[in-house]
């Protein structure tokens, strides 16, 4: 009743009913894998909601940051405790959901023309989400994240020509930890980065609505699926509820980032076996595997952290960012694609994806090589060399193997499409009835 009157009031002034009806009656293709991006969306909304609360509870002044974060980690104040736990878990799940969603987009070829732009927006959001996560877990100024910041400072400092400038902008000072470091991270974390992600997210979803969703149904001229209202709205509401239920479950049973046991940051204190949040672990692994060689260029040193800490993630990001165009070049496929590929359709893409996943997982594992070597009773130096060899050989083997399997599976699917195994021939018999004839082998 009230809804009806409000809708009527708005429509009379703005003429919104026609547009609303169009959006509510819009048809979206349905497949379980299409919900992965929605998980990311709901993790982001949870982060914004809990994050707004946290800005009022947290004091980013360097002297007070650790103390006010400790209060939020105190079980005696259940609301702050639960909100901070949900916020940190949501950040971890947010990046994970983006990665899985991008994996789906990649392996089904959803990034192809005309959706290259939306792929690039999605990749950018992945980078921004990781960076937001890093700036966020660094805010409490505890021993673990402070050591991570010191490493980040070293990486910034390692850039040729502008290293000192970059480190000094980050620190707001000519030394680490600079007086303005935490307040720089704070304004990045609560304002610039989330606002940018929010704007890109609106653009991302706007493009999905405007360009219409891709589908597996081989009907290129029409969208085949369900109406938004009420079918799809209920389904996405269920995803929303499930997202929050999982976050609350994690907050109940698994304590994340127990800063009270880390202690405040001191430049001379560190814990053994420390690892960062999972999405930055590949960088930590790369730093551990990198060679100690310091190159000298025109008499200026390029410290060894520059290559694994900055060049590796930048090159990987740029490669993935332009992948739609690389693939277009390699396959000479400039056609319009609203119909998705089966993940085995293009062996080249499967191979590249498998190689990237192999190295990503390997570098992430390498971030815990000290624990692994202790558990396996293996010399650490031996393990580092195993990882270094695998880093080069592994993606080649994994890539070729995956491409080969994909080609074989594609051939099999193709065969079964030509000679469907369940096809039977009906033959009329002499009595006027019908008999099934056994299918002929291909």
């Amino acid at each position, binding site marked *: 009743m009230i809804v009806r009157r409000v809708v009527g009031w708005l429509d009379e002034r703005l003429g919104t009913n026609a547009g609303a009806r169009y959006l509510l009656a819009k048809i979206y293709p*349905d497949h379980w894998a299409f919900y992965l991006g929605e998980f990311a969306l709901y993790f982001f909304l949870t982060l914004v909601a809990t994050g707004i609360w946290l800005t009022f509870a947290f004091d980013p002044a360097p002297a007070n940051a650790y103390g006010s974060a400790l209060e939020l980690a105190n079980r*005696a104040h*259940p*609301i702050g*405790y639960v909100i901070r736990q949900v916020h940190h878990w949501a950040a971890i799940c947010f990046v994970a959901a983006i990665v899985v969603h991008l994996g789906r987009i990649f392996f089904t070829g959803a990034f192809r023309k005309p959706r290259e732009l939306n792929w690039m927006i999605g990749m950018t959001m992945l980078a921004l989400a990781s960076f937001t996560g890093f700036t966020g877990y660094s805010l409490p100024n505890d021993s673990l994240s402070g050591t991570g910041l*010191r490493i980040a*400072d070293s990486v910034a*400092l*390692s850039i040729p020509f*502008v290293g*000192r*400038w970059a480190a*000094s*902008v980050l620190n*707001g*000072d*000519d*030394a*680490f*930890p600079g007086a303005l470091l935490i307040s720089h991270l704070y304004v990045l974390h609560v304002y610039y980065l989330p606002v940018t992600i929010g704007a890109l997210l609106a653009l991302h979803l706007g493009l999905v609505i405007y360009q219409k969703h891709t589908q597996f149904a081989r009907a290129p*001229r*029409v*969208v*085949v*699926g*369900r*109406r938004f209202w*009420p*079918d799809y709205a*209920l389904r996405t509401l*269920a995803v929303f*509820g*499930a997202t929050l*239920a999982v976050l*609350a*479950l994690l907050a*109940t049973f698994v304590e994340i980032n127990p800063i009270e046991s880390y202690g405040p940051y001191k*430049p*001379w*204190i*560190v814990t*053994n*076996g*420390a690892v960062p949040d999972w999405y930055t672990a590949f960088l*930590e692994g790369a*730093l*551990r595997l*990198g060679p*100690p*060689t*310091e190159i000298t260029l025109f*008499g*200026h*040193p390029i*410290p*060894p*952290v520059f290559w694994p800490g900055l060049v590796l993630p930048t090159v990987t990001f740029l490669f993935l960012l332009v992948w739609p165009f690389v693939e277009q070049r390699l396959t000479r496929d400039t056609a319009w694609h609203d119909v998705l590929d089966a993940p085995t359709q293009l062996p080249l893409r499967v191979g590249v994806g498998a190689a990237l996943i192999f190295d990503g997982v390997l570098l992430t594992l390498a971030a815990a090589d*000290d624990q692994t070597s202790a558990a396996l009773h293996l010399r*650490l*130096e031996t393990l580092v060399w195993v990882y270094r060899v695998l880093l080069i050989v592994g993606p080649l083997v994994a890539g070729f193997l995956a491409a080969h399997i994909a080609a074989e599976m594609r051939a099999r699917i193709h065969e079964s499409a030509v000679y469907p195994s369940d096809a039977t021939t009906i033959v009329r018999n002499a009595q006027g009835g019908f008999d099934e004839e056994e299918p002929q082998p291909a």
Partner: protein
Amino acid sequence: MRVAVFLALTIAGALGATVASALGADPAILSGALVVAFFGLAGAAGSAAIALHAPDNLEEPRHARGPSITSPVPNEALSRGTFGRMWLAALGAFAVLGFVPLISLARKPGRRAATGWRAGVRLVDAQNQPIARDRLANGGIETVFPQDGVELPDAPAVLIRVEPDLLRGNAAPDGYVAYSKICTHAGCPVALYRHRSHELYCPCHQSRFDVLDGAKNLSGPAPRPLPKLALALDADGYLVASGDFDAPVGPDDWDRRP
């Protein structure tokens, strides 16, 4: 009916969470009630969606493909020839100007090397207490700072006492040696000492340094040895520095030669 049960769970969970937080119960009870509330919401929406038995093969036409019209600009006068290039050049000039505020953001460009170590400065612990010559037994380790300089970022050093005969070519009072605690790789504290093999070990990226031989690199990604702090004993039997570190502290950068 199933939807109603799930919605009842949602209502019970949400109100339960409210009561739990009002009573100041354990956070696990609060978040557990939230699990019930959100699980109920998911279940209600999911079973309502299933109960609809809605068709999933409805169709909607897609847009026409390809370019619409050749140029969206109704009048090409601004973008023609030299005139168009000048507009672009003006834009480029502003981009160059943009570097000015960007560069000025580095309020204190450069890098301060503040170790606080000079000849005669006493070694102190984190409580600013001086280190007497009998402070450590053989195999002992302590983090030390220059007196009144505990907060200086490049100051921390590790003081280790070893059997004097084991040291290679170093004159060390009573077998005491001191090295910068800031790793030359990525600035982490080199916090672990394996006293049997006499090596310092960085827990961040596993660089190993030989304590007996000037903290030379044994393995790991650090490019240089840890800077060494030469030591002496003062008249009162306290350890003092006999100068600054013998090399710059921490990782190198473009503007600092190793």
